[in-house]
């Protein structure tokens, strides 16, 4: 389309009149839209940029980390905790011990429902302060019934009430954990000592595991945890109580940063009545073995086949 006799400036917004083919024009439009869509898709990353370093973005799965890589990650996490919370902490990687299979038992006859365990968990595990997060939920139950749906987690009156019993519920560290099988990215798994853990840096926060857990034991970090620096528990482990980022799942780890070093879990130490029994299933002299062999223990929702490591019992 060339007319030298009647020259007139072609409108810039009509590509055809500028000598460009329809096909080319469509390509250009497509490329522009594509670039915009790509930018849009990346926007969450650029928005997160201040909080996510390149090394964190490229971090591998916990099980694939070499010794040096892990050490670098732990150092980075310690530095981030110092920067964001002003707290000097020590984050370690505590591997499971050989010859140890952890289990927990809880005596419902002597639990008084004081919720000291939930409070201790909140502090020990560096939970978000404003949301009062804790891995333990204590249900007030009607005596003579085990209907969890009728349990009340919001009681606020002196305890124990005469016609009630109290049932703390936390992660049962199932031997067949549904939370593990539903995870689409294998960010959660069962360790060889029986504890189900989460790689908080691998978790994508889809919350499938929260939906899959029959015990409502998993928690989601809706916000970046807010903790005053003097309240941060400084002894931390990568797979347990280090401060979790926003948007990931978290759960009770039987305080593995303590228990894998031989110590008792924080909730047990806080229990004023001694309702909680913790120990090594493989040690025939352990307290937990005595309970399992001499008390009539039961597990919650046995029929769903999760095989919990958390037992309940009543005194005769």
């Amino acid at each position: 389309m060339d007319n030298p006799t009647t020259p007139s400036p072609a409108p810039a917004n009509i590509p055809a009149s500028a000598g460009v083919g329809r096909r080319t024009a469509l390509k250009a439009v497509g490329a522009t839209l594509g670039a915009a869509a790509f930018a849009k898709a990346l926007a969450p990353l650029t928005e997160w940029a201040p909080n996510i370093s390149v090394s964190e973005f490229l971090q591998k799965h916990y099980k694939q980390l070499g010794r040096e890589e892990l050490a670098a990650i732990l150092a980075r996490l310690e530095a981030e905790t110092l920067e964001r919370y002003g707290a000097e902490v020590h984050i370690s990687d505590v591997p499971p011990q050989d010859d140890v299979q952890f289990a927990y038992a809880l005596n419902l006859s002597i639990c008084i429902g004081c919720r000291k365990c939930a409070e201790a968990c909140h502090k020990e595990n560096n939970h978000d302060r404003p949301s009062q997060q804790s891995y333990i939920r204590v249900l007030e139950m009607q005596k003579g019934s085990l209907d969890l749906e009728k349990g009340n987690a919001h009681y606020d009156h002196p305890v124990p009430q005469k016609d009630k019993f109290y049932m703390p519920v936390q992660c049962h560290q199932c031997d067949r954990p549904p939370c593990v099988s539903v995870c689409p990215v294998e960010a959660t798994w069962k360790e060889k000592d029986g504890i189900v853990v989460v790689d908080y840096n691998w978790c994508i926060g889809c919350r499938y595991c929260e939906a899959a857990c029959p015990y409502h034991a998993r928690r989601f970090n809706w916000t970046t945890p807010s903790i005053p620096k003097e309240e941060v528990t400084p002894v931390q482990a990568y797979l347990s109580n280090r401060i979790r980022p926003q948007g990931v799942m978290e759960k009770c780890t039987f305080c593995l940063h303590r228990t894998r070093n031989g110590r008792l879990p924080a909730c047990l130490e806080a229990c004023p009545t001694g309702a909680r029994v913790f120990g090594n299933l493989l040690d025939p002299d352990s307290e937990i073995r005595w309970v399992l062999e001499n008390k009539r223990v039961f597990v919650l929702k046995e029929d769903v086949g999760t095989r919990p490591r958390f037992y309940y019992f009543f005194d005769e």
Partner: protein
Amino acid sequence: MSPRTPDFKLALFVLASGLAALAVIAVTQQNGSAPAPAAQPTFVRPRHSVTIRQPIQQPRVETGKTDPQGHPITVSCGSCHATSAPRPDTRLASELDEFHQGLQYQHGSLTCLSCHDASNYDQLRLADGRGVPFPEAMSLCAQCHGPQYRDYSHGSHGGMTGHWDLSRGPRQRNHCVDCHDPHAPQFPVVQPAFPLPADRGLKSTSTAAPHHG
């Protein structure tokens, strides 16, 4: 990762070796020879101790008077009881004319002298008449509360702190009277700590709260 496999094998091995040891014992007993020593557990022997708190020392009785420095003056139980005759029927402080007024007593149908030793008020007394120093009161409690003492002995009654693994550290345990006042042993009713926010957890029976992680 298949975390159960190695442990399962280990458990099987332990089970199998245990059965083997039993079989050996059975065979040797059948043969009439001395039974073979049972297989020693492979676990590390405990090195650290379990210590029980000692909340009761020798009790002292307040006289209601203070010394020139303002400190309360206390006397031993025997100071008064050496000169006053025992009253074996006394159950409540209100039955007394003086001293121990206001003592709340709710411990079954026991009398004072069920546990206190009329021949020496500075110690306690077992049911068979033997004296027991105050710091060893647990054996006195255990006379009647056998199931609790049994559970306590096996670590399933009474608070504790420290280590589950005694090869790695010690453990501290509460004494009976840390939680149970001997004169009114019912565990006290308390206001629960740490109220759960209304927007989290299972539905309350009073207020319908949405589920939130």
